[in-house]
């Protein structure tokens, strides 16, 4: 048995330089300090993404992307296909959890300022991955073609129309027409299973390669502490120590997903009727609530600009600035550190305040 393994190793090494890869893997370490618990979030997001791909492929075996059959096919999966309820609920829950861990991962990187040189592109690819994850969420939400999804998509795409200059074109592009119809469903399905996965694969590969290249970043405060005490950097080998810990986290995640699927299965709702009036309290999924609630509070007209247009523009610019943070936070100095720290806290608090009350209220119902 051992010699077969050695034969394969040699075969691969002669062609792909396996030995140097294995050496790299052996040498890879992870810094250990009081903030290193946040390091698990990236791997957790990746794990949940893999879960999404696997359960998504399984769902593809039965799902039908047409308005006549979408709802019925999901109902079929939930009721007739063996363990269909499990696959579907896991897919819906893991999707939401993935977006949650992605946000946590992004904020932890932000507060640890891990985006500084040389990791700027890692941050940018990561932010783009976050936008893609939100795109996955938005496109996937429509696929069961139930009432909530239909009207949430209607409202969401209407906001796209508020983008100045290209808004109308963007709306038609997203909807596959003027209204949300079967064309929208087909289009969103194409985005969800082909376009977004393709883009994600490329960006994810880039992101992971960059992380391997530059290793894990250490927060400045910890660096200072280490140089001050003159001691060794405390490092943990990635294989097997960190990897086993990662694995434990993933098993816990599996347990949580199983429990959620069995005890709090994802709702199916009622088939969408485009001609019925929208039910009260239509809102998008929780990860868009901060934008939705903020836009609700902006007055209809500020000066001569339409309130919603201003809101969408503001969010766009904010998103862009956030994307370019590594290029904005370049100067050294305590004042800058405090400024960006304050900015980060403001963003987190703002998003929490605009998301949590509505979310809790709807969960209490």
């Amino acid at each position, binding site marked *: 048995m051992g010699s077969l393994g050695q034969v394969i190793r040699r075969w691969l090494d002669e062609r792909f330089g396996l030995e140097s890869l294995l050496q790299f893997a052996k040498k890879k370490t992870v810094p250990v300090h009081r903030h290193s618990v946040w390091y698990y979030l990236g791997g957790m997001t990746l794990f949940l993404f893999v879960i999404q791909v*696997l359960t998504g492929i*399984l769902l593809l*075996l*039965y799902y*039908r992307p047409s308005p*006549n*059959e979408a709802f*019925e*096919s999901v109902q*079929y999966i939930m009721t*007739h*296909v*063996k*363990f*269909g309820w*499990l*696959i579907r609920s896991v897919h819906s829950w893991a999707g939401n959890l993935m977006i949650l861990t992605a946000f946590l991962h992004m904020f932890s990187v932000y507060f640890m300022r891990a985006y500084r040189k040389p990791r700027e592109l890692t941050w940018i690819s990561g932010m783009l991955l976050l936008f893609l994850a939100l795109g996955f969420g938005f496109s996937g939400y429509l696929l069961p073609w139930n009432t909530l999804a239909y009207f949430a998509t209607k409202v969401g795409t209407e906001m796209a129309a508020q983008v100045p200059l290209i808004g109308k074109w963007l709306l038609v592009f997203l909807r596959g027409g003027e209204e949300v119809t079967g064309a929208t469903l087909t289009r969103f399905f194409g985005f969800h299973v082909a376009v977004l996965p393709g883009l994600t694969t490329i960006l994810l590969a880039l992101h992971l390669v960059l992380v391997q290249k530059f290793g894990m970043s250490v927060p400045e405060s910890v660096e200072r502490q280490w140089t001050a005490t003159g001691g060794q950097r405390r490092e943990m080998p990635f294989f097997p120590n960190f990897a086993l810990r990662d694995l434990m986290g993933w*098993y816990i995640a*599996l347990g949580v997903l199983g429990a959620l699927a069995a005890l709090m299965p994802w709702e199916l709702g009622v088939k969408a009727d485009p001609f019925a009036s929208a039910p009260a309290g239509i809102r998008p999924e929780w990860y868009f609530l901060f934008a939705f609630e903020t836009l609700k509070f902006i007055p209809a007209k500020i000066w001569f600009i339409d309130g919603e247009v201003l809101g969408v523009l503001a969010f766009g610019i904010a998103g862009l600035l956030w994307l370019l943070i590594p290029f904005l936070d370049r100067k050294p100095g305590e004042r800058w550190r405090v400024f960006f720290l304050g900015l980060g806290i403001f963003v987190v608090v703002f998003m929490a305040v605009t998301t949590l009350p509505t979310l809790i209220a709807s969960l209490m119902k």
Partner: protein
Amino acid sequence: MTMPSHPVAEESRAKSRRRFMQVVLGSGIVASIVSFLYPALRYMIPPTTGELGSDTVVAGNAKELRANSGKIFKFGSKPGLLIRLRDGSYRAFSATCTHLNCNVQYRADMQRIWCACHNGMFDLNGRNVSGPPPRPLEDYAVHLRGEDIVVQRKKAG
């Protein structure tokens, strides 16, 4: 460092503990993988209930209906009415009366579709001809596939 009392015994105890741990971990991992793979594999086997088709359904058997009779069949989540006319041909309609949603029935004596709730009457084309119903019954396409009578929703427009 304190010296172990029996280095060999200690060594073998440690070895057996490690072996035990390996067995526990190995079997745990295998069991967990099975508990993940089994549902996934079972899922991939198509259920026996077959065609999901909410647009198409087998409404009955060619031998089932005599001429000038009708039967109710399930079409997705709503009832449908399959009629066999005097000349042997088939018609199919939604069985939900357009007045107040009672189930209609075929009246062989009048060769009409009748709603018992308020005496609504539809003709053999589903058109509302008498009584309260305001609209005709939705009609479906009927095809014969071997012995099966297949009813299909008509495409819009």
